[in-house]
């Protein structure tokens, strides 16, 4: 770029491009790290420094490991006791809807679990090529995964004006178009959404399930942001729960795979690679093959499995670690709330940038209203306007965010994606940098 070599007016790059809690300055949960440390190095169990519940949890987890070591292989679908803990977590979350450990498969992150499902679902070429309906916008590595598996991608647009809602009419339209060129088999939903932060109402989920039942689609419900909900009057409903309450024909026939992980939420343990999928109404013969596929990858990382156990079964009131634990979780929630408040304040003052209400998830996906002049300038450089915006933003202020063109968006609309779960001072710094860049930029092209 033509500014190379010039003195920069910032000291370091501020990276708000990826959904990484710890990179954003948020500290890991103490209880989680203490249990993991004791599992790595059981000599710590003799230490006075660790609370009793930490030691008990570490001991009980180590008992489930062959040879009492987290270095041993485990069952391919995960340690039985941990799958049990996860199934109990799901049942509690869903107000009593039963969950069986036999339908739980632990994997190294939700992405990997999702890819195993895709591997089972996807085959064929030309008209028989498996089609998967995916939302626009959607995060980039998922699109890449679909391409890698040889799926035909059938996009359905989320409705930005209504807060990025999912509209069944749009699904129907997309499906109809898709059927002309491929064999649509699966419907992928991300709820809460990435990058949009939209969270579906119960009614919306019912409509989608009914649509999937009518059109015979396998539902892939990516729910990794389920514990990041902060909007007022906003609640997360799992696809499993809503499905279970929809009458005997639908609830016993619609095939569903739900995904969750330790990478998001208050844990933010992306690097540990712990995730699971729960299968509902899967053909038992297919489940057998899924198990076999899993077994060829030996087993998920044990540390990730332990993190899942801690996520699914955190400290309870009365446990020695509970006070610190609940303080830390609350602090993270407060931080995100403050950040989303600040973001809305700052955006309200800036011209040419607007944002749907922030309800859930880790990101904000504001719309940039570029002038014709700006769009033409970008066209001349053979780049998307929002990509060019992000490049200049990075060059001039050191703030790194991602452009909407990487996620898909309606033609002639432009966005950026900002991570919101960072330390408050980092968020403030980011917003200042954005402010100092944005107004002059918009003026330049007015």
């Amino acid at each position, binding site marked *: 770029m033509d500014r190379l070599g010039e003195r920069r007016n910032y000291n370091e790059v501020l990276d708000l491009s990826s959904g*990484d809690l*710890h*990179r*954003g300055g948020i500290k890991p949960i103490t209880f989680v790290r203490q249990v*993991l440390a*004791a599992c*790595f*190095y059981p000599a*710590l169990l003799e230490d006075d*420094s660790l609370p009793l519940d930490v030691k008990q949890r570490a001991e009980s987890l180590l008992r489930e490991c*062959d*040879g009492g*070591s987290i*270095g041993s*292989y*485990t069952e391919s679908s995960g340690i039985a006791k941990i799958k049990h803990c996860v199934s109990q977590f799901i049942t509690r979350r869903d107000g009593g809807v039963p969950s069986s450990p036999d339908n739980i498969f632990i994997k*190294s*992150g939700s*992405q990997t679990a999702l*890819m195993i499902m895709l*591997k*089972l*679902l*996807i*085959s064929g070429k030309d*008209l*028989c090529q498996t089609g998967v309906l995916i939302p626009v916008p959607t995060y980039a*590595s998922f699109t*890449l*995964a679909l391409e*890698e598996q040889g799926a035909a991608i059938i996009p359905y647009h989320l409705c930005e004006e209504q807060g990025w809602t999912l509209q069944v009419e749009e699904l129907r339209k997309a499906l109809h178009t898709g*059927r*002309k060129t491929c*064999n649509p*088999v*699966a419907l992928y939903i991300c709820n809460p959404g990435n990058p949009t932060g939209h969270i579906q109402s119960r009614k919306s989920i019912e409509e989608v399930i009914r649509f999937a039942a009518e059109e*015979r*689609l396998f539902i892939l419900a990516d729910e990794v942001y389920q514990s990041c909900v902060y909007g007022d009057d906003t609640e997360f409903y799992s696809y499993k729960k809503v499905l279970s309450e929809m009458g005997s024909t639908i609830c016993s*026939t619609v*095939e569903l795979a739900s995904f969750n992980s330790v*990478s998001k939420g208050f*844990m933010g*343990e992306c*690097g*540990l*690679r712990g995730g699971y999928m729960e299968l509902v109404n899967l*053909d038992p*013969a*297919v489940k057998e*093959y899924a198990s*076999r*596929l899993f*077994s*060829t990858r*030996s*087993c*998920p*990382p*044990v*540390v990730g499995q332990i993190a899942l156990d801690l996520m699914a079964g955190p400290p309870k009131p009365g446990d020695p670690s509970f006070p610190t634990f609940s303080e830390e979780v609350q602090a993270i929630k407060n931080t995100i709330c403050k950040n989303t408040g600040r973001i809305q304040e700052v955006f309200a003052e800036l011209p040419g940038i607007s944002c749907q209400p922030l309800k859930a998830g880790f990101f904000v996906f504001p719309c940039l209203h570029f002038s014709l002049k700006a769009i033409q300038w970008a066209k001349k450089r053979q780049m998307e306007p929002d990509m060019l915006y992000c490049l200049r933003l990075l060059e001039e202020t050191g703030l790194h965010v991602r452009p909407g063109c990487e996620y898909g968006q309606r033609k002639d609309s432009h966005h950026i994606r900002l991570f919101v779960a960072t330390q408050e001072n980092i968020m403030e710094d980011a917003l200042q940098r954005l402010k100092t860049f944005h107004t002059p930029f918009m003026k330049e092209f007015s």
Partner: protein
Amino acid sequence: ASHEILNYMMHTLPLRGKVLTVDTMNANVKKVDYAVRGPIVQRAVQIEKELKEGVKKPFEEVIKANIGDAHAMGQRPITFFRQVMALCTYPQLLDDNKFPEDAKNRARRILQSCGGNSIGAYTTSQGIDCVRHDVANYIQRRDGGIPSDPDNIYLTTGASDGIVTILKLLTAGEGRTRTGVMISIPQYPLYSASIAELGAVQINYYLNEEKCWSLDISELQRSLHAAREHCNPRVLCIINPGNPTGQVQSRQCIEDVIRFAAKENLFLMADEVYQDNVYAEGCEFHSFKKVLFEMGPEYSSKVELASFHSTSKCYMGECGFRGGYMEVINMDPEVKAQLTKLVSVRLCPPAPGQALMDLVVNSPQPGEPSYQTFMKERTAVLSALAEKAKLTEEILNTVPGISCNPVQGAMYSFPRITLPERAINEAKAKGQAPDMFYCMKLLEETGICLVPGSGFGQREGTYHFRMTILPPTDKLKIMLNKLKEFHQKFTQQYS
């Protein structure tokens, strides 16, 4: 139009049918088998449950000698490694004076290269920078100074992840141009399973049992020539030290393989996860990379090679960490860019596995506080394995009807068993491979869980089993003697 009719038919199938059935599923998945965790292990797990419930059996415990899991069999983790991992995970411990300084320094260094100084942050898809640098340095030291570029190092989720990724990259074509992958028979069934899953063509080359499982170039040639009739052979996989056979290839053999790959334009995949597990007199590990470069630029600038290593074997035995790396040599830059893109799909390998890999390649040095304990532990593990390798070969060779090649390296014995005609017939009548029949009976009567040779591949009409040498020496002796008794009884019963 016909596609409308097809779609109509597909969508008006009776509602009883699910969307995802064995018939609508990706057909390649049906061919996937992984004997190491197959039906015999499932039965073993069932028996363990029954024992727990108090069901009476002719034995008190199931001995899982089917899987290369050292810690499960009582091997202790290396203290230094676990200390550093604890420090990385809970950095408060850096203030604890019970931890040695060299462990703390390693932890600090690793944490500094992690986002937010946390091992819970995503890493770059190719792996933490400083770890890749340390891996490159390790390779360079190991290979007598031959340079290694960190940019050619990819950290992986165990070696399996790297192996499957490279196979995926290489699999292309259709029908007669479909990628053929040459793999040894016997082989570690990850290869056959992945080849099936990817829809590539498996090309078998037989190792020579009479010559201690050595590799004959003439056999490679024969197999390649035959394969060219029906596919496009592009890859040659070699496991050294071998799994399940334990053979350690001579330097000459490795040179011959490289020469063969160069001549026949094959991409070499060298699975070297057992590189520290070498026991037999006169045997030495030679890395494919080292030999390649010592053969001069005619080969070293041309032959495409991927070498694999992991934290699961050797003296570490840290299977559950899923740590590993691969080094790619002479890969076409455009293909390498695709590889980098491919690995980004799964985001990143587990950070603890990456950290552990760093410690393996950057272990305590003479003069450092942890050095003595580290060396003591490492030596103890490797010498115990060497002892057990010898013991296994000796005892098994005293059994009439069992013949065991020297266990030169790795973690397994793969003895040949002679089965009576009647047993073979009974097995076949049951629809079972004869060595599966044998192993199932062994499991039911003694609690010993092994993997039948049919799970790894073997010459037609021969039978084997794979048994790990990992149980503690005392238990191993008991196990081998029980096996001896069983075999004699079995032979008599079916004579």
